[in-house]
């Protein structure tokens, strides 16, 4: 049994082992080194898995050699491999950034614990993406969520504690709803293996427990993915968490929740059940549109940049769900594509905001005045990422928008096309609030003139900003994976 055959298991085990190691090591530089090594290894493994799946199709791995459906199965299919790359990639880019970022924001004696929680969160997210067992999803979901609550609470401001508590309450309710849904499904099918469940559900389609399970799962997952109006926890959590945490969460947490939704909808229930039995399409469409407009509009009136972009995230999640509501391959491609594109864009934005917090002492619009003079590269990076949020050609956001429009046009929904584009104009409005503050005002007097950005923070940020442009021009990987995943999911049933 070569190492290569155990890659699916190692994907999760390596970050998992890193966690107690960092706790035992206590020393913050060593803990950082372990965490960094673990996430880079995880990234390498995810790329290998992606290449394998691309070449030869779905990989099925039985944990402990117990054959599914009695044992837990790790199943890497086109969608999972894409998610794995996204999550581990973001962790690999954010961790080097963490080193200097948390110097400023987290007390020194807690640094090694920060890395422990980070690595645990990574484990959870990777586990969710790779497992083929429904209850296992819940377990990993809670692992990552608990780690997330701790990470958020490490923020400087005391409001981080309240934000974390609020997220804990709402997140646990969401997870419990998910577990209720899984329980009902287990009662009806007698199995927890996702693929097996999908097959057995065909016999009990349309029965009330199954529909109830669908409802519970949808609401529970919607809480986790911050679908309007269940998004209340997100603005506070993103605003008060340490910058590196906001960057990592914005890029991964809600995206993995969308993955869970897709997994349940398509691999367990099947498209016909979800969209045929319940008015899922209309409900998702309405909520997505509401989120897009309400959240983007709220973003325009925020005075703190982190909060502004947090609301922007809620709006962008609206786009993601909108793609899902089309019930077509293009729509699903748009959804999966935007998971990735928005992930890197928002990750880059929060990392840039971390740089701003470091040098300017805060991220409110009044502190950011004159940023164009004081930190020209950072401002430029923010403009590029802002353009990606708007969907200007040449950026990653444009590609997702293209597919979203295509999906709407395929169904002849011109009114929806215009709504999508009008909401992009809202994005112009809130991005331009930053531009005007940064370029049209003079820097404040009380800003530390000597603070500079360390390399360890600047390089990962620049990398993500470059990625935002790169994936807007070279779309082979993203569009290829997304459409492959979409076709795979829609073809399942």
């Amino acid at each position, binding site marked *: 049994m070569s190492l290569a055959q155990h890659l699916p298991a190692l994907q999760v085990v390596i970050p998992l082992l890193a966690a107690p190691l960092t706790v035992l090591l206590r020393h913050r530089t060593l803990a950082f080194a372990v965490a960094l090594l673990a996430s880079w290894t995880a990234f390498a493994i995810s790329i290998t898995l992606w290449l394998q799946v691309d070449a030869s199709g779905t990989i099925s791995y039985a944990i402990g050699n117990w054959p599914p459906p009695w044992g837990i199965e790790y199943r890497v299919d086109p969608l999972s491999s894409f998610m794995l790359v996204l999550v581990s990639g973001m962790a690999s880019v954010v961790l080097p950034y963490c080193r200097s970022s948390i110097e400023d924001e987290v007390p020194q004696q807690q640094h090694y614990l920060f890395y422990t929680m980070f690595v645990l969160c990574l484990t959870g997210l990777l586990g969710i993406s790779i497992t083929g067992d429904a209850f296992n999803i819940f377990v990993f979901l809670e692992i990552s969520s608990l780690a997330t609550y701790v990470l958020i609470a490490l923020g400087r401001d005391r409001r981080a504690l309240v934000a974390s508590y609020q997220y804990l309450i709402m997140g*646990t*309710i969401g997870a419990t709803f998910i577990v209720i849904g899984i329980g009902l499904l287990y009662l009806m099918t007698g199995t927890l293996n996702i693929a097996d469940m999908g097959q057995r559900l065909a016999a009990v389609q349309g029965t009330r427990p199954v529909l109830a399970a669908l409802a519970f799962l949808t609401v529970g997952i919607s809480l986790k993915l911050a679908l309007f109006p269940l998004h209340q926890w997100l603005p506070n959590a993103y605003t008060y968490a340490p910058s590196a945490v906001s960057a990592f969460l914005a890029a991964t947490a809600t995206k993995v929740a969308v993955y869970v939704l897709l997994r349940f909808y398509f691999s367990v229930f099947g498209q016909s059940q979800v969209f045929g039995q319940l008015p899922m399409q209309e409900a998702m469409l309405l909520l997505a549109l509401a989120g897009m407009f309400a959240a983007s509009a709220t973003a325009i009136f925020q005075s703190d940049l982190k909060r502004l972009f947090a609301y922007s995230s809620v709006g962008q999640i609206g786009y993601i769900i909108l793609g899902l509501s089309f019930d077509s391959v293009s729509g699903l491609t748009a959804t999966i594509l935007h998971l990735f594109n928005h992930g890197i864009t928002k990750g880059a934005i929060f990392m840039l905001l971390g740089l701003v917090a470091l040098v300017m002492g805060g991220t409110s619009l009044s502190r950011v005045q004159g940023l164009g003079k004081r930190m020209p590269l950072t401002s430029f990076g923010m403009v590029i990422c802002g353009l990606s949020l708007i969907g200007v050609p040449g950026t990653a956001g444009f590609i997702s928008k293209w597919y979203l429009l295509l999906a709407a046009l395929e169904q002849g929904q011109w009114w929806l096309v215009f709504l999508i584009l009008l909401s992009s104009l809202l994005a112009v409005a809130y991005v331009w609030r930053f531009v005007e503050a940064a370029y049209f005002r003079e820097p404040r007097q009380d800003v530390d003139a000597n603070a500079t950005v360390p390399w360890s923070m600047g390089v990962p940020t620049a990398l993500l900003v470059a990625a935002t442009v790169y994936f807007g021009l070279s779309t082979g990987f993203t569009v290829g994976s997304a459409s492959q995943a979409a076709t795979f999911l829609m073809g399942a049933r």
Partner: protein
Amino acid sequence: MNTTMTLGGHFTYFVTIFLMVAGLFIVIARGNLIKKLIGLGIFQTSVYLLYIAPGKLVGGTAPILSDAFTVYSSPLPHVLILTAIVVGVATLALGLALTVRIREAYDSIEEDEILNMDAVPSRQEQA
């Protein structure tokens, strides 16, 4: 005859629903942070019941293989719920730890007082 059978047979589900709703109500209606956590705990307990109760089959015995018996109760829900209980405990511990820290920072664990205290510093934060 039938109604009693149904009521009796579904007794556990009624309890489940009652606990579920009671727990959720406490979380939403109570402003004290610890009471919210208690409500959360009650809500999670209802889920344990939801899983375990159906596991006991009528006429089923404990899941230990023996030639004398043909119907066994399912052990899988117990395994799942043990996991869920552990998760619940961890969540409760984390929630209580956060409550302690919030008490230190705000000198209160009432939600409305905390929100009031937070509303004012937002102007300071802009400075």
